[in-house]
């Protein structure tokens, strides 16, 4: 099919509170094709979860549009809207809250199968078994009668994914779906999500604060780095991870503690000019990162908001300096691999 499957077009989300206006997401555009894997990465408060929820149609943008198959989602009505709702599913972070504790696995999977696939009784059971197999819960029959409290965190997440799959979604947004799961089984869950994209053509978006998880999950896809509500860098994973174009991405990657003593104790750091993250109530003028940025140029970075533009090599970055020098910030800071 031509054109992107799902798109955020200059989307913003603001909240008015007694303390002032919070801009959780500011002018974000993201375009995703079929079978794509992409990660939204950033620290807390960067707006990645809000962006993910807007992508899933669970939150209405204050400005901008959400487009699915070219059409504005929030203009849709009736059947059209219902079709969109089913096409984009969210997998939640907390395996202990994402399943109804009073319902068995079978009782959780049955209603969407009944309503949307008109499957009841034996047909429904067969469908459930095949879904549970697909998400790696074997032997499937053993899991049907279990309550959530009888399952481990990883198993619950798999059931959540199975539930999302009951409606044959085109897009799955996984919001920190592996953060609350044991370290040793994260990879298998990420593999499952990755498989959905490659084998079943489900566009999969993973929201995470863990760059190592992002690198693994999106190894054949892209990563979008967010800071204070804006996308500061959007690129294919390997180039971004080895040679980040934005100074914030460079600082993040240089700061990550790694599970390898030699690497982590000898990593070159990027020193930032300040440790405090500005409040969303009071965004700095111009580039939101400029108060902490080692490359910031007064008169430019504190005045004009940088837009996401292309650098040579198929990557986009929102940084005046990097764009002007036509070089990734990592190289300018001397931390490129």
């Amino acid at each position: 099919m031509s054109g992107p499957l799902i798109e955020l077009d200059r989307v913003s989300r603001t909240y008015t509170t007694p303390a002032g206006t919070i801009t959780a997401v500011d002018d974000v555009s993201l375009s995703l094709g079929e079978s794509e894997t992409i990660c939204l990465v950033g620290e807390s408060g960067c707006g990645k979860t809000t962006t993910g929820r807007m992508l899933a149609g669970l939150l209405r943008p204050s400005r901008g549009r959400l487009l699915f198959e070219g059409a504005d989602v929030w203009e849709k009505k009736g059947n059209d809207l219902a079709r969109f709702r089913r096409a984009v599913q969210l997998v939640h972070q907390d395996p202990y809250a994402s399943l109804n504790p009073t319902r068995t696995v079978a009782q959780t999977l049955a209603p969407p199968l009944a309503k949307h696939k008109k499957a009841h009784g034996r047909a429904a059971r067969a469908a459930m078994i095949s879904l549970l197999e697909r998400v790696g819960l074997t032997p499937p029959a053993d899991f049907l009668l279990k309550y959530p409290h009888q399952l481990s965190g990883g198993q619950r997440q798999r059931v959540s994914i199975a539930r999302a799959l009951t409606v044959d979604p085109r897009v799955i947004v996984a919001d920190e779906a592996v953060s609350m799961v044991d370290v040793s089984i994260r990879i298998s869950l990420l593999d499952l999500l990755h498989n959905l994209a490659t084998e079943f053509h489900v566009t999969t978006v993973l929201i995470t604060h863990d760059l190592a998880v992002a690198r693994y999950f999106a190894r054949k896809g892209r990563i979008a780095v967010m800071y204070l509500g804006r996308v500061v860098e959007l690129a294919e994973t390997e180039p971004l991870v080895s040679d980040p174009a934005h100074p914030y991405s460079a600082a993040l990657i240089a700061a990550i503690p790694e599970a390898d003593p030699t690497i982590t104790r000898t990593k070159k750091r990027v020193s930032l000019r300040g440790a405090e993250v500005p409040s969303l109530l009071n965004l700095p003028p111009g580039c939101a990162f400029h108060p902490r940025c080692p490359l910031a140029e007064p008169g430019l970075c504190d005045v004009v908001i940088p837009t996401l533009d292309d650098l040579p090599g198929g990557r986009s970055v929102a940084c005046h300096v990097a764009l002007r020098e036509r070089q990734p910030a990592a190289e300018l800071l001397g931390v490129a691999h």
Partner: protein
Amino acid sequence: MTAAVTAIDRRDVTRLPGPLASVVEFLRMMSRKPVGLIGLIGVVFFLFLAYVAPFLVPLQDQVDVTSIYAKPSFLHPLGTDFQGRDVVNQIVYGGGDIITTAILAALFSTLIAITFGSIAATLGGRIDSLILAITDVALTIPQLILLIVIAAIFRPTSFFALAVILALLQWPALLRQIRAQVLSLKERDFVEAARSLDLGLLHIIFREMLPNMRSYIVIHFIIAMTLAIYAQAAIMFLGLVPLSGRNWAIMLYFAYNQGALFFKDSFFYLMGPIMAIALFQLSLVWLASGLEDVFNPRLRS
């Protein structure tokens, strides 16, 4: 915090046929808390007494002036009343009306509370404010006074009507609870997932949220029964309700008015219904206490 799922327990109760499995599971849970089990036994006993026993024991309606307020004896284990009728017999026949009315009242109040509590919480806005305002008014009026006034005005002529009146006084408390629960459940991830899966409002309320409120509902139901029984005892004792019959509350009325207080031998005529009511109430309360555990799915195997 880890739940290790190894091989499925061979003695897993879920392998028994559905209804039987639930009953076994239920009894197993209840036996953990002795109080609950005693309550269950008590309630079952009184239900049997009220509904089944009348078919086994013939009604003794004959007035016998020679044995007014007779002492307890083999023939009359609790003595006789002011017209020479057997007290035990009256206790057997006296439960049905009271308990039925209590069940009906509890049922109506629960239904009102669930319906309007869910509506208030899911729709929000003005409707929510309106329902809350009405609830608050209902909550602040002293219940017994209101009951007496309503009973005096409307003079209910059937137990059904009485049940309706009693229900109208009890829904506020549960409504607030239901509303609070629905408000918090609304935000839960699994409810959001049900919305994304386009499962419909009715499914969300009845299949996703209500099962999480089972404990509140059932326990409220039981407590509502106890309140309905107290209310009935009160207004019938005060002679406000022109209902005939020989239920426990009316026995109290007659006992008091016919001077049972002043005779040594009529002690059981007075105490009989009091004890019946009190023991039934106690059983209900203990049952409710035991049920709290049963409704927590985490405490199952």
